[in-house]
């Protein structure tokens, strides 16, 4: 049907975005790869030289790297667990007959629109601060010792802050999916005497699987590179307790000026993301077709 002329035109229209994305992917990545084989510190300009895999050797044998790797996976896994399970529960709750459902939805979705620096600072100061925070006041009110969340449980605190931002997203998407569930099927199941749990595992959960997959995919993209929440709350500390890969690369490059080492870290982060991506793409490919 399409003429040759139309096909050429179509290619011409797709070209700009393909070229831009290709350039955006390949040029900086190639430079990062090049830097990762160099001894290159911004504090000693003119001393750059090729050192092969030395940067990788240092980076991979640095305990900070393994901790950052573990923290990265903990953040992704922890936030996913909270938001997916919490999202299913909240979606089921919102799907019930409720008065003022519109307002409830509006209140619940709000955290998703809050910029990360704001939510992190509000949680850090007004809630988790061990002296003036609301949690400290609550602890004192019941006679307990206030907890210094960000010093004692830095990674858990960050997971909580990030989960607060993403729980509404998961809830909203799962609720939308839930509302498209065929009510006749549910009624048929009820007539057959299926209990609430049986209905949930045999009807609701399979129906939600596609939406859950999408939630996992999209959240993972964003969660692999959590940054602002760490920067304004703990600066990755104490020690490396709340440093993820993104933050480690940032601090090595822009705080310690070690371009070579940080580049090696960047390449490692890309490889990790690719492994996760291949895994996810398989999953999404299966569910979405």
């Amino acid at each position, binding site marked *: 049907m399409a003429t040759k002329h139309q096909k050429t035109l179509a290619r011409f229209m797709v070209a700009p975005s393909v070229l831009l994305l290709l350039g955006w992917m390949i040029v900086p990545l190639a430079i990062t790869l090049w830097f990762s084989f160099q001894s290159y510190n911004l504090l000693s300009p003119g001393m750059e030289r090729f050192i092969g895999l030395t940067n990788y050797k240092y980076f991979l044998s640095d305990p900070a790297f393994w901790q950052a790797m573990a923290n990265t996976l903990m953040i992704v896994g922890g936030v996913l667990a909270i938001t997916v399970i919490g999202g299913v529960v909240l979606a089921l709750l919102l799907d019930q*007959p409720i008065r003022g459902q519109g307002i409830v939805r509006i209140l619940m979705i709000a955290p998703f629109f809050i910029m990360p620096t704001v939510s992190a600072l509000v949680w850090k100061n007004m809630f988790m601060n061990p002296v003036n925070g609301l949690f400290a006041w609550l602890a004192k009110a019941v006679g307990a010792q206030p907890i210094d969340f960000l010093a004692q449980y830095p990674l858990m605190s960050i997971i909580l802050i990030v989960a607060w931002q993403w729980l509404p997203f998961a809830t909203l998407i799962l609720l939308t999916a839930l509302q498209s569930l065929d009510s006749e099927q549910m009624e048929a199941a009820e007539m057959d005497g299926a209990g609430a749990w049986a209905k949930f595992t045999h009807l609701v959960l399979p129906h939600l699987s596609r939406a859950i997959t999408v939630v996992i995919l999209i959240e993972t993209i964003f969660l692999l590179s959590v940054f602002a929440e760490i920067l304004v709350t703990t600066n990755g500390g104490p020690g490396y307790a709340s440093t993820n890969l993104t933050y480690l690369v940032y601090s090595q490059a822009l705080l310690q000026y070690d371009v070579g080492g940080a580049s090696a870290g960047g390449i490692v982060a890309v490889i990790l993301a690719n492994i996760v991506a291949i895994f996810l793409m398989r999953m999404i490919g299966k569910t979405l077709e």
Partner: protein
Amino acid sequence: MARRVSNRRRWFFTILAWGVALAIFFPILWTILTSFKSEADAIASPPKFLFFDWTTENYAEVQERSPYLRHFLNSVIISVGSTLLGLLIAIPSAWSMAFQPGKRTKDLLMWMLSTKMMPAAGVLIPMYLLFRSWGLLDTRLGITVVLMLINLPIIIWMLYTYFREIPSEILEAARMDGASLKNEIVHVLTPMAVPGIASTLLLNVILAWNEAFWTLNLTTSKAAPLTTFIASYSSPEGLFYAKLSAASTMAIAPILILGWFSQKQLVRGLTFGAVK
């Protein structure tokens, strides 16, 4: 199909849902309330919820401490600018992929989405050094282009899923009637595509407004949007809860309102049409 619901059950779920929703919303509510307190009231123990001397002086002080309006304007320019630029590039691509799909269109779309998965850490250093040598650090132009690039895959995907739903028979009918390509685009396609383009615009402005990796790393003061401005409160001097709250309230209010309007499109847009 209305199921009969007992009144007691209805009230139970209503109270439960309102409780949970208020708990989730509470940090935002608390921030807004605190922004109207004096600094002393902001850290009062026990906390003062509603009965305090309401004041608006924090809002004035935030503007004094740092030109808030400039950062606000930067946020508007950067988020709207990057989205419009992205739309300009994405609309032709999405249009041709939706209406002239080739054998490789699906692969191409998947590849575009996969660029989103590249961690920013992998390209931070070259981008920072290139920006430094090109004099683009802390410029609105530089950060606008970067945000356009990181959101481009999402813009293309969203537009594609909207365009794909425009029935192609209508286009064929227009062609049969002898409409030129220009007429086809202006009179047939555009009116049907506008809603999709509008929700893509809305959502990507929200995403760009809240983007906090590249804005924090590539801007410092002149071109700094609100994300960077708020981050400057992470190393405070003296009492600052009320001022932090005022600055935060102003930073989130516009986007919160936009967000509430975009609720419906949000699900569809961010799941690339997979959940409707």
